[in-house]
């Protein structure tokens, strides 16, 4: 698929589907080391974005992501709401009014999104947060792009790295977010936000990889 506004919409709709499917799993992750609401929050937020998207089509990818950002910010709440909101907002800004995202634009989007999360949440890699999904995703995307990959290929590399990063949060001791209150007892559980980030990036790759 060419990464147009149409793709951007398809991605976000796919996010809503996937997060609904994974609602309980994300709640369970959050129940273990947090407050058991991450799945609910993400489902609610992306369902709201889909509602907004149903209202009319957007002119370019950045417009879709801005709408996504604003809606997540006002419907997710918790830590994840402002973090994902900032990620999509900064990502959108990095795209300007491009109608189609080439591999460099995809990398720019992911980098800006990750930087947004870090700027808001002040977490470092290894703190057992969604940053541990986004950072390897950005790195993998850069590597793929330098190696001449297509946009869908870049997203695919990012998604795989994000999932690996999410899985790798399991042994970590949390230092940010609610899980940090647990101290050493947070080890042995996957970070819910890292997992939802991996799901979101996988949705991007999946929709980008589809034939149209």
């Amino acid at each position, binding site marked *: 698929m060419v990464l147009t506004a149409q793709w951007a919409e398809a991605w976000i709709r796919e996010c809503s589907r996937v997060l609904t499917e994974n609602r309980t799993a994300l*709640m369970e992750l959050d*129940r273990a*080391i*947090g*407050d*058991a*609401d991450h799945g*609910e*929050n993400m489902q*609610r937020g992306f369902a709201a974005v889909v509602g907004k998207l149903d209202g009319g089509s957007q002119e370019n990818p950045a417009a879709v992501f801005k709408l996504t950002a604003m809606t997540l*910010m*006002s*419907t*997710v*709440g*918790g*830590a*994840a*709401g*402002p*973090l994902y909101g900032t990620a999509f907002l900064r990502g959108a800004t990095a795209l300007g009014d491009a109608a189609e995202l080439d591999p460099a634009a995809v990398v720019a989007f992911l980098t800006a999104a990750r930087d947004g999360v870090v700027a*808001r*949440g002040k977490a470092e890699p290894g703190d057992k947060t969604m940053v541990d999904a986004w950072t390897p995703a950005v790195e993998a995307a850069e590597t793929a792009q330098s190696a001449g990959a297509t946009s869908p290929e870049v997203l695919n590399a990012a998604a795989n790295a994000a999932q690996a990063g999410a899985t790798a949060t399991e042994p970590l001791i949390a*230092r*940010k*977010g*609610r899980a*940090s*209150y*647990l*101290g050493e*007892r947070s080890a042995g559980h996957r970070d819910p936000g890292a997992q939802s980030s991996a799901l979101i990036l996988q949705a991007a790759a999946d929709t980008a990889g589809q034939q149209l």
Partner: protein
Amino acid sequence: MKKLINDPQSVVTESVEGFGAAHADLVEVHPDPLFITRKDAPVQGKVGLVSGGGSGHEPLHAGFVGRGMLDAAVPGAVFTSPTPDQIIPATLAVDGGAGVLHIVKNYTGDVLNFETAAEMAQAEGVEVRSVLINDDVAVEDSLYTAGRRGVGGTVLVERIAGAAAERGDSLDAVAAIAQRVNDNVRSMGVALSACTVPHAGVPSFELTEQEIEIGIGIHGEPGRHRIAMENADGITDRLLEPILGDLKASNGDRVLLFVNGMGGTPASELYIVYRRARQVLAEQGVSVERSLVGNYITALEMQGASISVLKLDDEMVELWDTPVWTPALRWGV
């Protein structure tokens, strides 16, 4: 999970609707985006106080909206911080020209959402200050963590800062006293049983008949450690020790002793805890000048309690005693 609810999705809106109807003389409910204000907001020339956070801690915060306490409360979904699109209009609605203080419990979600809202409200021309409440000694405080949580101390900050605003203090002065209360209060909680988030449908953690969770948060987040069940005096001692250690309360200090129920614990048990806490304080030469015992900052139907100790100065006592008239705290009027 058995709860007196209709639908996990409508718990907050229906509950706030009932609350608004029951206390229509005191508060006004703004349904969309959802926030609650004093009936007479904005009070011209008075600093506005706004607090908020996830729902499930009732009466906090909406129960403390009224004269001598909060001007607005912003409830999020259960255990989920509210969003800026609620906090911003709440902030604008209670600005009487003297600026607005955000009282924010130190949770990443609350901090981020209030931060965004404060920026945007400032952009709309309202002067906003924030004070972060972080009184929970169960959590290690360090630059490299999310820091201590805001728990019981929040109620005391809302009351005392609310009194300062009511007497006409400036935004800087109200923020300063709020900060001073926060700096002088420490809290710690215990859970005997878990709570169940309505939309999750299963208890937030599991405790056997023999276990309790020491250092529990107010969101069913696990605590500092899990120990075997003890008697009330033993548990009280365990909660007080880190509080008094961190507060460095000593002979001659005057304190406010706040024994708070988590929602599912009978008042009779809170008084048993209160009794022991007073004994311990008396042994250390600390005098209990004011007390508060009851369910004020809860975690749904969790069984358990928290203790907060606030080191008092004359001004705090004076402000504490001024009239307050809210759905959940009232005296002098």
